[in-house]
């Protein structure tokens, strides 16, 4: 009975499934992709058991297909995320996310004296390293590394 109910909300006809999101990053992903502003049907699931991540979350979005540049933004908080593109209930494409070369918004510059932390300025970074994510602020030129990465 319970299983049936999950199934009935799970399957989507057309759209995108984002899997392997670390459970504690679910709401960050929602905010980065601005899913709260979409009016299509969505399902969020969290705290599923994952061998790789411990606890993972998953998002299913009907009738929504992301541009690469748009979806790659979530690589900062969910580097292992997997995308399944669904058409007519079938997975027609799978892909990984990749940290983009430039990050606009999303991340806070860790330099408290940076103009972006004191005036109303959208942050902007060049990505210096993708493995251990290292960002260089385009304004103050200081480095924000993985350990100090804060999502706005």
């Amino acid at each position, binding site marked *: 009975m319970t299983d049936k109910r999950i199934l009935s909300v799970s399957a989507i006809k057309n759209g995108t499934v984002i899997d392997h999101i670390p459970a504690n990053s679910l709401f960050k992903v929602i905010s980065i992709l601005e899913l709260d502003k979409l009016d299509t049907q969505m399902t969020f699931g969290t705290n599923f058991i994952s061998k790789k991540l411990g606890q993972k979350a998953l998002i299913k979005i009907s009738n929504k297909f992301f541009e690469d540049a748009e979806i790659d933004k979530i690589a900062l908080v969910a580097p292992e995320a997997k995308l399944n593109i669904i058409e007519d209930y079938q997975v027609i494409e799978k892909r990984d996310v990749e940290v983009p070369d430039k990050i606009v918004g999303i991340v806070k510059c860790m330099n408290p004296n940076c*103009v972006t932390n004191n005036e109303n300025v959208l942050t902007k970074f060049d990505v210096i390293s993708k493995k251990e994510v290292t960002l260089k602020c385009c*304004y*103050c*030129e*200081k480095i924000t590394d993985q350990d100090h990465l804060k999502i706005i």
Partner: protein
Amino acid sequence: MKNKSLISINDYTPEELLKIIDIAGEFEKNPVQDILRGKVIATLFFEPSTRTRLSFESAVNRLGGRIIGFTDASSSSVKKGESLKDTIRTVSNYSDLIVMRHPLDGSARYASEVATVPVVNAGDGANQHPTQCLLDLFSIKKTQGTLENLNIFLVGDLKYGRTVHSLLMAMSNFNPTFNFISPEELRIPNEYKLFLDKKGIKYYEHLDFSDIISKADIVYMTRIQRERFSDPMEYEKVKNSYVLHNYMLKDTKDNLKILHPLPRVNEISEDVDENEKAYYFTQALNGVFTRQAIISSILGLK
């Protein structure tokens, strides 16, 4: 370079750096010209820096330009809470070029994005001060005849000193050898060493420089501030190791010049001033020619 803001020394290619230096050389020979007649230059000093401001204003005045602006934020609308963006937009309407000094890191880059006229960064917090760097390059080229293959000693606070970081980046285009002389706590940050490694540039680190100074073409002195030390005892222990005295210049190269961004406190003993190798006061004068060159090339007049 026409209409291009100067925010960071890395904005200019080596060719552009050399071009500015050449033009500065022309202004040195002929510092009074009327080429800025009818132009209005805004000097917006959100924090006071009399030395830098006077240098810019002297440069503009000698070229027949007019100046508007303020000398510290307390006397301006900024005090009333106006955003940086609004100030810059407004001043863009009144001027042909904005010279800006501001206490926040990155403020100059942001100003250049919202301004409708070019912006010259006269210091943004601890980040960049590119006109200082260009005047240092001009001073080096003028005294050495070249920027290539020089042995450059950077002395003092190499951790926080933005002038040494900019100079390091700019000189790296010209195959230098660097000798870094600083106390343990104020060593050159790793990111610069990685940068030099990547470029294949030779550098050496020392805690003391008295026995190696004979190799130097340029000695660039900086001030060590007591506040930079977590342990005040440490400051007391090291402070005298980074003072240059006249006797130390005895066996140095003929072409050696001592540079300092000024103001100095006690890191260069006054007995050095009369030595012909002391160059820091002329260096400051070179700032006027360099700023004349920067402003007139950005306005497309040179």
